[in-house]
């Protein structure tokens, strides 16, 4: 019987240790059960919330904000199909079906912005239950509130009514929410930013690249201006201008961050941080804003990389004749913003093609650069303030701010007088000062000038396709559905609509 007892004992031991035996925690990955416990966890989590900004500015932000305007177009390459996702934005033919669209860029904008929101929600939902240094905690909360508001501000301008997620989703239930009214979304954005301003440090005491109090105020002012709350905008911006934290760089070209230098300079209010190298923090938007095809030599002469490769496909974000013509004579910004290159593979006799110059810089590796994207520059702070003042009837003060920007561009003082003229002058100034910085579409739609600007733009393209980079090849003309979708807001992404029960 003794032997049986031993067996019984082994049996017993096996079962008592069972739950331990069956609990296998991932060894090389952190799980939520053990995370969000320390200051370091929250610092890393807020850093993680910045990460999707790279993808957003490397892609959908310029596709929806700049290509979808009269500033840039694509260079049609007839050898390539499956390019309609960009083309539809450039020529205002985004397909719409029951309020949704299959356009992949609209989808990726939606998904990327909500990814930032969910990461901010994760931080905001858990940070107050952990005790650590108050300054550090406030700083993190301020950044999270800013990034959430920033994302919603983009979403609400793209889609008007959007689901408003303010806490982390618990599981499948609650993963989709009903659409919130535009006003409710704006209320939340203002609330978040108003809360963020006192929590955030000034630029001089914040780690370069992170959100600052100045950035939060600028964003808040941008939101107020969109909502035509002019005096609120003025109040939000005044401390930014008086803070002494910002100034215009001596020349326009110097305002833009280079591949590894001149980042977060004195003019920079908020910029998306890239870094070249193998760590996955790089951008490649320079390569997307090019006419194709390009030979190895042509690519090499642009970027001077050690491993240039030929480029093929269809290029986008090519400056239109319209934006080129928008610069006043003598405007130094024109040559700093746009350059001409020779594209030997372009069919026909005209090989000279304009490209965006303002972000250009040499870098080491093909398709891998560390150029930051300027989201808010001090020049825009001045123009926002000018707009806020002008709309309150303080046109004289507005022109003074406008002239600060013009003077750096080598231009004389504006001759505009009176609210209407100054409004127009600011609108024009914004176009050239902020060209290719994804401001143009928002300026057109928020001022209600879609019909006035986009319709004639479309007529010019259809009438003169060669001027808009169509090749001299029979049949290579604008499709017959161009400029048919002039809606203020984008349709919802179809892939999300299929899953969500609410839209």
């Amino acid at each position, binding site marked *: 019987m003794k032997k049986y007892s031993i067996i019984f004992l082994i049996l017993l031991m096996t079962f008592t240790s069972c739950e331990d*035996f069956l609990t296998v925690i991932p060894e090389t990955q952190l*799980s939520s059960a053990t995370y969000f416990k320390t200051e370091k966890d929250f610092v890393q989590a807020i850093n993680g919330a*910045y990460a999707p900004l790279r993808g957003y500015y490397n892609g959908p932000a310029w596709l929806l904000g700049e290509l979808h305007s009269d500033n840039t177009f694509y260079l049609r390459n007839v050898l390539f199909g499956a390019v309609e996702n960009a083309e539809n934005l450039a020529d205002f033919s985004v397909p719409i*079906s029951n309020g949704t669209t299959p356009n992949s860029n609209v989808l990726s904008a939606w998904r990327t912005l909500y990814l930032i929101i969910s990461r901010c929600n994760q931080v905001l939902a858990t940070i107050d239950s952990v005790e650590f240094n108050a300054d550090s905690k406030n700083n993190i909360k301020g950044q999270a509130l800013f990034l959430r508001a920033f994302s919603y501000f983009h979403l609400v301008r793209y889609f008007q009514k959007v689901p408003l997620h303010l806490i982390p989703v618990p599981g499948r239930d*609650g993963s989709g929410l009903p659409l919130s009214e535009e006003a409710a979304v704006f209320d939340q954005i203002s609330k978040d930013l108003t809360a963020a301003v006192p929590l955030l440090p000034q630029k001089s005491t914040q*780690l370069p690249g992170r959100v600052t109090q100045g950035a939060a105020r600028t964003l808040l002012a941008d939101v107020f201006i969109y909502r035509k709350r002019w005096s609120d905008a003025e109040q939000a911006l005044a401390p930014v201008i008086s803070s002494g934290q910002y100034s215009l760089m001596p020349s326009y070209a110097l305002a833009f961050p280079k591949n590894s230098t001149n980042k977060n300079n004195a003019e920079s209010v908020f910029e998306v941080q890239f870094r070249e190298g193998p760590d996955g923090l790089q951008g490649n938007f320079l390569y997307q804003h090019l006419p194709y095809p390009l030979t190895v030599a042509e690519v090499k002469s642009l970027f001077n990389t050690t491993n240039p490769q030929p480029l093929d496909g269809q290029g986008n974000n090519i400056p239109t004749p319209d934006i080129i013509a928008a610069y006043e004579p003598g405007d130094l910004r024109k040559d700093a913003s746009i350059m001409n290159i020779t594209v030997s593979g372009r069919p026909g006799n005209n090989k000279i093609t304009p490209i965006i110059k303002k972000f250009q810089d040499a870098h080491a*590796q093909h398709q891998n650069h560390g150029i930051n994207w300027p989201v808010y520059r001090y020049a825009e702070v001045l123009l926002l303030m000018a707009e806020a003042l002008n709309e309150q009837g303080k046109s004289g003060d507005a022109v003074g701010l406008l002239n600060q920007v013009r003077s750096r561009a080598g231009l004389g003082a504006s001759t505009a007088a009176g609210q209407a003229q100054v409004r127009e002058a600011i609108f024009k100034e914004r176009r050239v000062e902020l060209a290719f910085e994804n401001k143009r579409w928002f300026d057109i739609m928020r001022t209600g000038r879609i019909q006035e600007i986009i319709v004639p733009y479309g007529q010019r393209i259809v009438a003169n396709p060669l001027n808009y980079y169509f090749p001299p090849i029979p049949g290579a003309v604008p499709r017959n559905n161009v400029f048919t979708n002039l809606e203020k807001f984008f349709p919802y992404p179809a892939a999300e609509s299929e899953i969500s029960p609410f839209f």
Partner: protein
Amino acid sequence: MKNLQLFRVKFRFFGVLFFMLCISILSFGQTQSVRGVVTSDPDREPVPGAIVSIKGTQKGTVTDIDGVFSITATPGDILVVSFVGFTTQEIAVVSGQTNLSINLVNSISDLSEVVVVGYGSQIKKEVTGAIQSIGGAELKDMPVSTIAQKLQGRLAGVQINQTTGQPGRGMQVRIRGQLSVSGGSEPLYVVDGFPITGDINSINPDEIEDISVLKDAASTALYGSRATNGVVLITTKKGKAGQTNVNLNVFTGFQKVPMRGRLEMMNAEEFAQFKKEYYEDAKRPVPSIFQDPAQFKDKNNDWYDALLQTAPISSYNLTLTSNKDRVNTSAVVGIFDQKGVVVNTDYKRFSLRLNTDYKISDKVNIGVNVAPNYVFDNTPRSDGDRGQGIIFNALHTWPVMPIRDEKGELTLFNRFPAETGNIFAYPNWVRSAQELTNETTRLNLLATSYLEWKPIKNLSLKSTFNVELNNSRFFFSNPSTATSAINQAIPTVAASIRETNNNISWLNENIATYRNTINDHSFEVLAGFSNQRFRLDQYRIQADTYADDRILTSQAAVNINRGGTFNAVQEWSLTSVFSRLTYSYKGKYLFTASARGDGSSRFGVNNRWGIFPSTSVGWVLSDEEFLKGNPTISFAKLRSSFGITGNNNIGNYTQYALINNTVNVAFGNTLTPGAAVTSLDNPNLGWETTSQIDAGFDIGFLDDRISFNYDYFTKNTTNLLYAVQIPQESGFTNFNDNIGEIKFWGHEFQINAVPTTGAFKWTVNANISFNRNEVISLADGIDRVYGSFHITKVGEPFGQFYGLQKLGNYANEADLANSPKIPGRSTVGSIKLQDINKDGVITFGGNQDDRTIIGNPFPDFVYGISNNFNYKNWDMSIVGSGNHGQDLYMRHLYSLANLDGVFNMVRKAKDRFRSPTNPGEGIFGTTVGGGNVTGIERDWPNSNFVWDASFFTIRNITLGYTFTKLPKAIRSARLYASAQNVLVFTNYWGGQNPEVSMQSNGLGDGGNLSPGVDLGPYPVPRTITFGANINF
């Protein structure tokens, strides 16, 4: 010969008993002493323990270990020689003839054979589940690298597809059509009682004695949460009672890709002609190079063919078995060496197995099996989509581009001027195949051991401890002169990947078995518990940009690629209790019930344990009075079973919310660590549950000369493990949940017959199975899941092809004007699609979608047939199998029929639409209009991609000759010739392998929800070998 040795062991005691009985009878002998040797046909091995008796008397004897017997008989007596599993023979004693040689032939009926079942064995007659077993001897001559290839066509209800010809890879086994939405669908492989975690293909097929395939829930339920996909039990070789045997089995031969069946591409002249016509039709000037296509008449460059070679294959196996005294040992040493038909493919396996059982006393046995092996495998990046697979890329390369320059050297890469319409740079794929390293080296050890104690009669207590170790090293490198990606100018960036995987899996099982027979009641009770644990350690370094192509070490690289460099650990554990009762009354009323409880680390804390019960019944009708002695029906059995099984293939940490702490950011050009929650947790996550009902019968006619088996099954898989897509406004893409239900059902027929016996013996085995499935439900609010060109939808079978239905091409202006079309895109000669929703406009996707189901990747039925012929010393076998009624999606047509002439094209594109009076074959449309027009038919998945891929393949023909007059040292010798993949009969034109059918190659759009995709994988060669099988 199936399982003969098991039976011999069992019956040895009876034999000895009988032998002693006979000695006492011998004294009655009179006139003459007859000596003889009993051997088995066709291998002429001695049969010990055979009973030799004189008909009509009680006189008899038993053969000794060398098969020799001696008996005293009178001339005219009839000697009756019998042994289990063989047909009884009668020989008249002739006066003066004192030396007899008796060759026993396998009996037709195999009902008395022993079948290996989960945790034991059963007599075939009493099996109540759906189990099919195959002896290693039946598979021995086939010149293939994997076990699954040997099983093709032989098993009813088991679909085995060879998805790629890469040696040692790509076999896909689906038992009873089982599929999971996202979990694994491969069966559980159990080697000598040990469920293995490594690659089944690293096991030398010559080590295998027997394979049992468990199909229904009653047979598999003892494997609980891992049983749903079916279980394959593999038993390795043991010595045969009383014998020592040395066997040498060698074969060598070559493999070649037949011309027949290759995807027909344009040659250089045809391609130039196409390009010429392309420009002419577009009314554009023809580039000078294409103005005279005839200049390419003798300058064709067949890039696909250039990658192929005739490749040698050889195998050497030495087997030593000995079962004497208390020790039963077998040792198998094997070398398998195969070059592939794509240049620079190399597959080698060195294996050793040592199985030893030792009987310490009548009550205690121990045994140890140790099987180390080493597998080396270098396969160029042959399979996959553009950018990955060089075969796919080679098909795309313009045949006017030279493979070799004037000096005969391989070109570096080819790129024609832009005005020729050449967009991409094409590296030289032959160079890529030669210069890229893509090798895996695996060192495996499989070791099982047991201690068995029989404290009292009929009770066995057995404890096992098993370990599996796998070490695999992977090395990929491309020097600056070669790449697998299209559109890479050479020199490119040299890159390397080094990966090491170490895994260990151990299992302890403790089983008590009690069996007894009391009067007419036989029963066996089994109970046990087990613990298994698995750990994988993974190390990977990816680096690029090297100063020197000769030294591709990690430290010599300029960049270490962060995304591709990691180490990781994967672990799981499983604790189980299980029990089974087997009962039979008079051997004709049969009953089995079993249950297993599994606790798994993979499941959520709220759902950690699962119970998997089963029961089955059988009734042997032929033992009943009303059928006994029936002249026609020799055997009849009805059986039925029900059981519940699980599938736990969901990954190890799926239940947890994971944090990715490499979501890094830069601040002011400084790399700063960041983190993000990347998945949602689900503490309720559990296994997939399948409940299965099986009903079948086995019937034998004419002394079992014809036997027939039928099974019907129906099973419902619920709680499907699925990453349910959730709105990404949540910040997450999916939520791992148990959702939905799929129903599977099918019919399986199998027939074994012996049309002729005697000098010319012919046996035939044929099977056919019909498998169906239907999605009953998915998640709440979700009734379909889309792939790029698939849909899985409630009320339809899994993974159907989904797209627009092609009606033809718009024949002329009138046709275009009067038909629904795509505004702004459709032109005369462009693809005409069906307006499914009748809104007058053709729309792809969105709310006015015109897509519909355009094909089914699952066959209507799969079938196989194997024939064995024996005539004197000659033997021959023919095995064939096929699938009928399944479609394939020719994914590669997307670019190989790109009507803009970007790539080389399929030859059929010659007969495309050129004008209303020259409309072509109707498959391909006009080239005029550029991407806006031609893009429709390639970018929008449509029925033009879907083609019938029914096929029948003659898998293997083997012809052998057994020598009888041999030197004394050689007991038997057989020479044979064997041909594998002899012929494929199919109308499929998309490539050489219609078996890519179940899914793509795990690349591109692969996965369970998107089966049946052809990307042009590694071709499956025809193999011809010559071999010898010698026993010493």
